[in-house]
């Protein structure tokens, strides 16, 4: 086996591996999106509970969420809770846009921004109603993400490997 053949085989292996990794990555992102959306759903539940029983300020809400291990993947919460000088709603949106939780689409990120945008702008009852409405919207996004995940996760993984193999065969 000469040097050229060795390089060729190595290249083909790299192509197959890269393609498989790409497939796995897309599949992983689907799982991340689903997990992040579910986390946002828990977060809304938590906010509703806080507003109902403790009536904290929006900064206290953000600080409490940032401290919770359950939301450790939401790095944007730390930026919100420490930003004291700019209006909260503005600070929340900025933090979300700078640090979008893993896997979320731009639509999902907009939904997350919207939670902060409306937080603290009305009385407790209206606040809870608004959050419930946002939760309904979120649940349909979760349902769509679940369908996506079931349908596409395995497909992406298989497609990745197969595409790699196909390209390799074509190159041989």
């Amino acid at each position, binding site marked *: 086996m000469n040097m050229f053949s060795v390089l060729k085989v190595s290249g083909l292996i790299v192509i197959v591996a890269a393609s498989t990794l790409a497939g796995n990555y897309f599949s992983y992102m689907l799982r991340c999106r689903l997990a992040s959306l579910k986390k946002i759903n828990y977060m809304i539940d938590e906010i509703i509970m806080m*507003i109902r029983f403790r*009536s*904290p*300020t*929006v*900064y206290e809400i953000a600080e409490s969420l940032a401290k919770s291990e359950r939301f450790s993947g939401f790095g944007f919460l730390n930026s919100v809770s420490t930003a*004291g*000088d700019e*209006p*909260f*709603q503005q600070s929340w949106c900025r933090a979300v846009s700078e640090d979008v939780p893993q896997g979320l689409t731009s639509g999902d990120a907009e939904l997350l921004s919207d939670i902060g945008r409306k*937080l*603290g*702008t*009305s*009385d*407790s009852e209206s*606040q809870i109603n608004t959050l419930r409405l946002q939760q309904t919207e979120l649940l349909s996004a979760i349902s769509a993400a679940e369908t996506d995940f079931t349908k596409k996760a395995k497909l992406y993984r298989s497609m990745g490997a197969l595409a790699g193999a196909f390209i390799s065969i074509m190159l041989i």
Partner: protein
Amino acid sequence: MKNREFLHYFSGTAGNAVSGLSDAQLDDITEIRFRVNRPAAVCTYCLKSANCAASKILYITQNGQLTYNPASAVTVTEQDVRRTFEAVCQYSVHSFQREITQGFITVKGGHRVGFCGTPVMHNGTIENIKNINSINFRIARELTGCSEKLFESCFSDGPCSLLIAGIPSSGKTTVLRDLTRLLGGRFKVSAIDERGELAALWNGVPQNDVGLNTDVFDGYGKAEGISAAVRVMSPQIIVCDEIGSKEDFSAIREAALSGVCTVAAAHAADMSDLLRKFPKENLNIFDRIVFLPEPGKVSSVLKRSGDEYV
């Protein structure tokens, strides 16, 4: 400096002008007023002359100077007022619903921010206030030692019930705050701090010195707070600000029956004003009455002798 902490609540161009005020200027200011499309104004202490009601209103220029000329002052916009209001609410309307309907919010440091606008009614009660057009930021101060003479003359023999009366801005709360500190050093005291002006509790920690033995009932209505204090804290003295309703007097009477004295403040210029506002039998709960004719001044203490105060 503690006095500058509240400046971050002010927004916009007018807010920047307020932030430009020097420490020395802030020391003299009692109120900062924002009114939509009108110059930013302040009220200052005016103890030098008795006839100074008009002269104590000053205006703030763009670069943070005080002037008597409103034409050279910075104009407050609708957005400045709205933003300032939002900052005072900590962008959390739901957390201050009760305070908003009452027309004021007490912020960190015990400063009381009053505002006026159009009420939003629901079932005959105020549910919210919209179109806020004026904000009055009353700067709270601890004048340590301002009530020492009063404390010595009234409490040297032990607890007693005292009513501190005065016109608005006469310094009732300031005196009451310092008296709470002194009383808390000697007696078991429960402070019913309905508006957060006595202890200025922030995350459960008093921002003002309320004395070593003072328990703070923060945000309680006066009547509920007094009943709760008598029930659970066994105080020797209850302190509360601005009493006036029948329920307040009824709770104070109940506390007196349990052997608990009350130190309270009420709006009244003099004895005749006090008698016009409150029935005599309500006033008789108090062993002593003191009037604050003007800021920083305490008139002689009236002692109850039978049904009369002499």
